[in-house]
């Protein structure tokens, strides 16, 4: 597994994932900087992404859509807030209408990406997801609780601990 750590911070509403790749910093940076590479990993296989606008400059906007199995095409965007190639990227974005206009009713989330060399040819990427606003969290949490109580209890330590899971 390349994922080396997962941290949740309930107070700041963040989830941080760390992964290590056997590749140079520059090549890991290209996963974000090259739109053709970005669209290959962003969406799940059932919803491949197409990046239609992509400039990594502060103030610029990345636009993309995804194509679903029934031909539906949800659109999204990321505003580039900060960029320091090949080490740092700060994005804030959400969903958009078909013509790319940001949908202000939909949640906005923030991504902070850090890329650093840990050894020659070995690169660590840290992705911090700042959970969207409360409304978005409520959407995401709006799932039924269909699990049994015994399973529930076994999950509880995980949320109660300020965890760093090493895997």
């Amino acid at each position, binding site marked *: 597994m390349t994922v080396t750590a997962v941290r949740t911070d309930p107070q700041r509403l963040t989830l941080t994932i760390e992964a290590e790749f056997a590749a140079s910093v520059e090549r890991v940076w290209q996963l974000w900087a090259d739109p053709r590479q970005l669209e*290959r990993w962003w969406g799940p296989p059932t919803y491949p992404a197409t990046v239609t606008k992509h400039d990594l400059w502060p103030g610029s906007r990345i636009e993309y859509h995804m194509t679903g199995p029934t031909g539906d095409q949800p659109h999204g965007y990321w505003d580039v807030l900060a960029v320091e190639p090949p080490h740092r990227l700060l994005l804030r974005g959400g969903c958009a209408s078909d013509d790319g206009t940001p949908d202000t009713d939909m949640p906005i989330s923030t991504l902070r990406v850090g890329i650093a060399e840990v050894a020659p040819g070995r690169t660590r990427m840290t992705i911090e997801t700042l959970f969207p606003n409360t409304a978005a969290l409520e*959407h*995401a949490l709006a799932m039924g*609780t269909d699990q049994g109580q015994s399973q529930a209890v076994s999950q509880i330590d995980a949320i*109660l601990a300020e965890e760093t899971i090493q895997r």
Partner: protein
Amino acid sequence: MLIQLYGCISMGVSVPIAPPDVDRVFAALADHTRRDIVRRAISAEEGVLELAGHYPMSFAAVQKHIAVLERAGLITKQRVGRRKVVRTNLETLILARRLLDQYEELWRARIDRMNQVLAETAGAGDTVET
């Protein structure tokens, strides 16, 4: 209500009940003493007075912590015979946990795909684990 995980794909599930105030839930869980109270109250055996005995702080301070947890929907006070015990609301905890798990899964899948992209774009002299 809709869940927006993968960018803007709606993975919709309808909700029969109002979800808890999530900011409050996470804020309540951000404190060590409150997490400990939630852990102890899973067994629903102790009242406020007994719970307060576990912590080196005033009864009033523990009462305040319990009030925060109660407002967040993480615990409820329940009458058992003549006593009132504090009980953890497992559903609220599970909802919070699930959200975190979903984001984690989303990014794990993306990182797997990143690895594939790196493997396929490997240049001379590069080796990539898959």
